[in-house]
């Protein structure tokens, strides 16, 4: 299946992916209304410092530890996509404890959120990828099951 992959050497560290993610998942149709003067809670984060930067988001692992570890049974893998039911999440952070990639973080209301590939918001494909000015993140098929 298609996933978001990182070309680290092309990352400019511009953080645009974070803003595009937050906007895509805001449910709003005006970017300024969605983001201006607000603390954003993107599901992709630029990690690293100085000259080395790269975007980190859910890897949609073949064998996801977060799914097995969620104490509320709120994380599941459906058709290859690891999804979280935020209505059932209690914010215990056990998924943060086990995710080897550091790909989950709490959202504004304290429940966890994660990249779900923009398949269920208005974008239909990852907004971080669409808006990346340097193709440092791409959405493509690179083999693997499912």
């Amino acid at each position, binding site marked *: 299946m298609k*996933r978001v*992959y*990182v*070309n*680290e050497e092309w990352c400019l560290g511009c953080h645009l992916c974070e803003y595009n993610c937050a906007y895509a998942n805001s449910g709003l149709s005006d970017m300024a209304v969605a983001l201006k003067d607000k603390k954003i809670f993107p599901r992709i984060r630029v*990690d*690293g*410092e100085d000259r*080395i930067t*790269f975007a*980190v988001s859910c*890897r949609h*692992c*073949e064998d996801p*530890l977060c799914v*097995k*570890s969620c*104490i*509320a*049974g709120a994380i599941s893998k459906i058709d290859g996509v690891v999804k979280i039911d935020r*209505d*059932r999440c*209690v*914010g*215990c*952070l*056990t*998924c*943060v*404890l*086990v*995710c*080897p*990639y*550091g790909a989950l*973080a709490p959202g504004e209301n304290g429940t966890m959120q994660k990249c779900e590939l923009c398949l269920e918001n208005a974008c239909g494909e990852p907004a971080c990828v669409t808006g990346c000015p340097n193709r440092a993140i791409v959405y493509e098929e*690179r*083999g*693997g099951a499912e």
Partner: protein
Amino acid sequence: MKRYVIIGNGTAAVGCIEGIRSVDKTGDVTVISGEKHHVYSRPLISYYLEGKTDLERMKYRPEGFYEENGCRVLSGVRAAAIDSANKNVVLDNGGSVEYDALCVATGSRPFVPPFAGLDTVEKKFSFMTLDDALALESALAPDCRVLIVGAGLIGLKCAEGIFDRVGSVTVCDLADRVLSSILDAECASVVQEHLEEKGIRFLLGDSADRFEGNAAVMKSGERVEFDVLVLAVGVRANTELVKEAGGEVNRGVVVNESEQTSLDSVWAAGDCAEGFDASAGANRVLAILPNAYMQGRVAGINMAGGEAAFDNAIPMNSIGFFGLHIMTAGSYGGEMTEEREDGNVRRFFTDGDLLKGYILIGDTGRAGIYTSLIREKTPLSTVDFEFAKKYASNLIFSQEIRRKRFGGVV
């Protein structure tokens, strides 16, 4: 058609069902469930009392889970014995169920020390099951004084869960610190101070000598009046079925990496079972939810004829109280290094070139990166561990490793 039987209906049972079904879509699965509830998440009972979840959202799997997985659930029925010679589980209602593969997922039960005068206490509760939580809830009132015996994970989550619904909460423990199973003395005092600031009162290094109706007379001589008593001293693994059937049992049911017990065609998973703690190099009961699921799943896959092993189990906990978060993992031997900044505590325990354990208080972001170093026994010489001590980041890995992690299928 293969007949699978699972004793228990908690997280390990769900893991077992999903493990079986990943291999065998058609075999006959029977779940023996002592509790009459649809499978729910045990650790959520404190969140339920706190109002952060409800009975519907506490379901660990959706309503149609058993039907979709072709499971027959014997609800309100308990296993009385395992007849391993005849591959038969004897039920407490007089019936029996034959198996080709059996998973014992019986969990644990509260351990209640023989306190003198406990029978004189009118309102006393354990805090393990949903029924315990519902019973406790019915006794709560805005002005009631609650005494919780036990300052471990269960006792303190209970304290947090009920705090806004009662007049006062006092927690006592024979140990001289809170969360003694997962925190060292200094980290425990950080957490204790935070809880005291919120208004919880502690009596540590002290326990009830005897109860006299609505009062506990402590070993120190102090008399603590209360309206509601919660007993959260500890838990014991439910090993009796396996032991009486002649299976090997220590503190929990002894299992190998495939979750097989010493009995033929019998597996065990979850809080009733021991596991190999890869961080300590020894067997112990790892009574945490992720471990229950993973053991159950591995058991189920093997029961159905597949091949799976669980060889990198470690103790780990993510727990928060009134906004302060704590994460711990692994074991705390070896050399300790600490970073403190802005009230955040990061303690790392290393042995030679390996990270063995950590304790984080406050900032716990991306802690799974640390956990993976323990689980995967990553040589610290291959990562930038000095950087890692200050901040959990993928920057600690080499570019080549990062290319695999973020450019490949994982």
